[in-house]
């Protein structure tokens, strides 16, 4: 293995995290018409971390390649990744098809092979389906070490990587050599704004467009969504006038 680091950044286009998702009329999915889409916030953190690593280890990092699987509009988020500092990018155009985590992992494995990447940084989960599986499955397919839910990443001079993970009651530190996979948690860093000069430069950076077939992978569905439902609306509270009334109410609700 060469000592250079080639980072792969899988990013997903999702409904903006600040918006309240609405279930569509047929109850099979989320209403996506006229809704604002943005980069998955955890992936945004992954991008930020990759740039940070590159800035801190200029000699070590050879390239950063961003990849997104989604509709043609996913180009927007690739442009952001490029503006932030990724060197090259690939869009795997699957139109509006839903792609399950296992399929995503297979596609990413193919991309990894094309790019010869040896460090993959991605969000621990996408905020639309909240699967939290892609990183782990990809590690399994590649048979690479994985450090999930990273809250701190440190690259050592001997090409080993130390990752801190927040666990119940403390911090766990895991260490592995490249190649490896890191999935990012919320506290890893705070993504920055993209400045205009960088945005303008990003337009000239390469954005390759591929179909799934080009990678020799086919998308198959293994899961079936039966129905999506909103959680039940919270009942309004009520004021009680006295302790006796409170006790009576609690008894009525069989709380005591």
């Amino acid at each position: 293995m060469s000592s250079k680091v080639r980072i792969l950044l899988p990013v997903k286009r999702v409904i903006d995290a600040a918006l309240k998702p609405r279930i569509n009329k047929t109850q099979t999915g989320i209403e996506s018409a006229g809704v604002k889409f943005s980069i998955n916030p955890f992936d945004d953190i992954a991008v930020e971390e990759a740039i940070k690593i590159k800035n801190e280890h200029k000699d070590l990092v050879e390239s950063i390649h961003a990849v997104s699987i989604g509709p043609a509009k996913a180009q927007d988020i690739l442009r952001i990744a490029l503006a932030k500092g990724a060197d090259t990018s690939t869009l795997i155009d699957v139109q509006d098809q839903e792609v399950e985590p296992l399929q995503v992992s297979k596609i990413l494995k193919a991309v990894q092979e094309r790019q010869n990447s040896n460090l993959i940084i991605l969000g621990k989960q996408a905020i639309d389906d909240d699967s939290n599986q892609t990183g782990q499955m990809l590690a399994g397919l590649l048979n690479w070490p994985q450090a999930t839910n990273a809250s701190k990443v440190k690259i050592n001079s001997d090409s080993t990587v130390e990752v801190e993970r927040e666990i119940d009651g403390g911090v766990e530190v895991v260490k592995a050599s490249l190649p490896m996979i890191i999935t990012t948690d919320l506290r890893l860093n705070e993504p920055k704004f993209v400045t205009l000069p960088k945005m303008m430069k990003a337009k000239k950076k390469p954005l390759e467009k591929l179909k799934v077939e080009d990678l020799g992978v086919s998308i198959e569905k293994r899961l079936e969504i039966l129905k999506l439902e909103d959680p039940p609306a919270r009942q309004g509270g009520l004021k009680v006038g006295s302790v006796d009334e409170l006790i009576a109410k609690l008894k009525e609700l069989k709380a005591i």
Partner: protein
Amino acid sequence: MFARLAKLPVARTTSRLVRWSSNVRLTSESYPQVHRLDFGQVTPKTVDFFKSVVGDSAVITNEDDLLLYNEDQMRKYRGQSRVCVKPKNTQQVSEIVKYCNENKLALVPQGGNTGLVGGSVPVFDEIVLSLSSMDKVRSFDSTSGILKADAGLILENADNFLAENGYIFPLDLGAKGSCHIGGNVAANAGGLRLLRYGSLHGSVLGLEVVLPDGTIYDSMNALRKDNTGYDLKQLFIGSEGTLGVITGVSILCPSRPKAVNIAFLGLESYDAVQETFKRAKSELCEILSAFEFMDRQSQVQNKRFSKNTHPLAQDDPDVDVPEYPFYVLIETSGSSKEHDDAKLETFLESIMEEGIVSDGVVSQDETQLKALWNWREGISEASNMDGGVYKYDVSLPLPVMYDLIEVLRVRLDEHGLRSASDASKPVVDVVGYGHIGDGNLHVNVIVREYSKTVEKCLEPFVYQWVSDHHGSISAEHGLGFQKKNYVGYSKTDVEIALMKQIKHKFDPQGIMNPYNIIRPDPELELSEEYISSSGEANGSRFDLRASSYARSSTAVSSALSPRFLKMRKKIRPMIIEAPTAPPTAPPMMAPLFEDDFEFELPLEADADAEAEAIGVDCVT
């Protein structure tokens, strides 16, 4: 201070462990020249009557609970009301107002109490009539976009309700989480979307108002087009609670834009700000929905309290706020994201390449969008954090708009009042920001504590300066208590006389928000003397704006009370012609007249020095 506290009932101190106390000075102490007018006193009988109308729980008499209603949000004014009533419907409002009118009890209608000129709090013991229990949407027509709602509906709730239906409230402002739409109408709030959707005078279709005698005026079913006689609702828009209590609002709401983008830019000069605005208007055209500017000092103040990383300083952790003297926030709203993105990108690229803008960022998602807006909207709150803030909200011609901030900094420095680091100086800094698109500048003089010295240094200097430069002394905040004496700097004799007559027509006893805007006066007539005196300085009867000095001085005198009209002859020789004034420090007009409630003096040394400089005697 202690003597006063001792007079207040202290019966509850033992029974209550936590006592909500206030360190805000009573308005009557800060302004001892203001005297309580001859109104009735609130008695137990009054309270009983209110309780019989609205129920026991909707009448607040507990002194601690009343603080919320007595104090304004800037913690500058504090009234001494003994009772707050919270009616639940228009009928109850009507009964309460009628009772007050019959018993000559003064009252202050109050919405979210987010006013910035002391117009929503009592000065003495006026009854507070809070609309906060009238907070329902009455109806919404999703075809026409007409929303009908109670006046106490919180602006943000109204907007969220409309968002569900694909519409937007045509008004947005920093205090949206607390302010009421009725209060917005009463203050004729401008806010962040005015550039796009115009003023409330255009979007409000109808109002329900309880008049001072208890009569309910109802034009809620008004149409968009209705040319049958006088458009009466317009009188209540911007009336600041002096003509009646707004209880219902019918407003036309535009469709909610599907795509919103924000660009936050750093610029090297105020000229560049103006140039960017010009270019934005022509190149962004119909998608431009807000154009806000902020000076560097406002960003520094925001940074001190928000502690967030400034969007243009993220690459260098040692820099709090970059050195650009000006910042601009541009919002675009449209129906097609691709179209808007492309347009904004082309625009930003061209102004960057031409060097008009030095640096900038664009929001990539909703979270960033809100974060960027915070660097503009958060200034107001951050300005209040050092102890207090003197706020001026003025309209000025764009080319001279920012000069006011620079003139004020120089003036405060000359008086040795300003220092960002020296805590013994009362003023921290002067920050300027506002709606370039509307020619509206917000001036925040951030102080460590409110003081007469600072106030006298600022007022009426600011008003005079604004008047000299053909501006308005209140663009969107209203007159309230703070600026009521200075209406003459923006309105002519004729306008003021008409306002007094209108006030008298609606509220002959003057019970509604009595220490605000204007007192009713039936005696004033538009006599020959009025008409000729307004224009005589430049020989024209009708060109009222031609000589601002002449206009403001005579107008102020007549805005006061009839007895001072007799002084007019004495006053007129004091008029100073504008051309003799040096441009950076225009001469301050000596205080020539006394107000019904208040008597303001500029700093004495200051007034004398300036009077000397311009060769006139200072009459005090």
